[in-house]
């Protein structure tokens, strides 16, 4: 049976915090302050980040011998050699000679879970995102591996021609308008001080705001009561744009992540972040 313990505990906690933050929002508005009703809740969460539970669970999953091949993930190469996690996330996405592809954190985990542990690729993709009934190993593992770069700076390099192509494709896609809403990423993330309803939107053409974003994914999302990864963030934006389900570890997702992480270079990683 899969464990759902951390999710359930965190869910209760987050519920209490967010109820409190709705009240705080009312007070802020009454005083005529700029409406950022989630700021209080975010700060409370950041001080006692429930996402830490996912780091621990991810480490257990990483070390445990699992899957049909009864292997751990300790031989997985995230770019700095098998088993080297410290700093690996700061250079992702990057080109991997063994697959001949540019891969991000989650696509690399997917590859290792299939090839080292013998898990079924489709089954992992099926459970890539947790829900209230079921935890996701992928979310915990990504959080753990990324957290091993905490305190280090994001440093995506684009030395390899395939990385350069991925970056340029990501930039193209960031500005590409499509779907029934005519949205591109830039539609909501290209200006200062913008909101969808009361939700603040980072201006992703500003390096410092981009760094603030990149520093904190994977993130504990209060409204989801779980940790989400960048793959989920992009899937979720696609959903809101009325596009079809964005494929997990798809090239569109990796290209956008390459573009965004490169724009966020220099960000000091603090994973898991805390988001609405």
């Amino acid at each position: 049976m899969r464990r759902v313990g951390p999710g359930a505990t965190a869910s209760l906690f987050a519920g209490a915090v967010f109820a409190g933050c709705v009240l705080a929002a009312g007070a802020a508005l009454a005083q005529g302050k700029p409406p950022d009703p989630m700021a209080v809740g975010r700060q409370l969460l950041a001080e006692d980040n429930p996402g830490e539970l996912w780091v621990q669970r991810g480490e257990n999953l990483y070390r445990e011998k699992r899957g049909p091949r009864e292997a751990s993930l300790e031989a997985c190469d995230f770019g700095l050699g098998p088993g080297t996690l410290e700093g690996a996330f700061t250079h992702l996405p990057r080109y991997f000679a063994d697959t001949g592809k540019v891969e991000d954190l989650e696509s690399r985990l997917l590859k290792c879970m299939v090839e080292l542990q013998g898990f079924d690729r489709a089954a992992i993709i099926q459970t890539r995102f947790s829900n209230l009934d079921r935890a996701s190993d992928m979310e915990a593992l990504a959080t753990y591996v990324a957290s091993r770069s905490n305190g280090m700076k994001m440093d995506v390099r684009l030395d390899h021609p395939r990385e350069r192509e991925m970056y340029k494709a990501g930039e193209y896609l960031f500005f590409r308008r499509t779907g029934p809403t005519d949205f591109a990423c830039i539609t909501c993330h290209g200006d200062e001080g913008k909101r969808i309803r009361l939700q603040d939107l980072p201006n992703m053409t500003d390096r410092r705001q981009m760094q603030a974003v990149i520093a904190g994914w994977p993130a504990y999302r209060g409204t989801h009561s779980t940790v989400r990864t960048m793959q989920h963030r992009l899937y979720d934006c696609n959903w809101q744009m009325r596009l079809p389900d964005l494929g997990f570890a798809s090239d569109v997702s990796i290209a956008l992540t390459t573009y965004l992480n490169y724009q966020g270079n220099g960000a000091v990683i603090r994973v898991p972040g805390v988001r609405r």
Partner: protein
Amino acid sequence: MGIRMTAWVVLGMPLIAAPGCMSFPDAPATRSLGEKMVAESYPGMPDSLTRRAVQDKAQSICSKVGKEKLTQEEAAEVVRLSRESMKYPAAGKLAGDWQAGARLAYAGQGGRVVGGKVETAKENGALCSNCHALDPGEVNVGNIGPSLIGYGAARGSSEEVARLTYERIYNAWAYAPCSNMPRLGANGHLTPEQITQVVAYLIDPQSPVNRK
């Protein structure tokens, strides 16, 4: 020393070549790679949905990368395509029931996809409050678009104002080519009848939008 020097020269090469690399790949190569990625990144989805990720001509023109500006010719082409797309309600009347419009203006549901299926909603919401202030009493509104508080009070509710408002909702790009505003009618998100209701919510003197 000799070996170290050689290593430096070899390792240094990519760095020296880097500025030349900045233009690699060029725009046409990037576009075709990006479009290929889009075609392959929605696996297992029915054609009716993957079609949503294919750009129409106006969207393609409106997807300038970085700070690149729309040319006058391109803007004129987007306006022409948008004028061509314009359709009106069968009943002819462009301002409908403002109370129905009030419900639509704050509704954000409809058209989203989960697990390859479009969500089941009685009707699509008009999405207005995601980006616009409307009723001054409602604070849960976005600011990507301009505030529409007092829209009708400032413009009146004549036939002309109703037509302009209708067209700007049906296809905003006929007036502001490539603006952030979705082409809600032309894209099929709203029906012409729904748009007449939103028009009424914006211009009717009784609507909270125009309350003194």
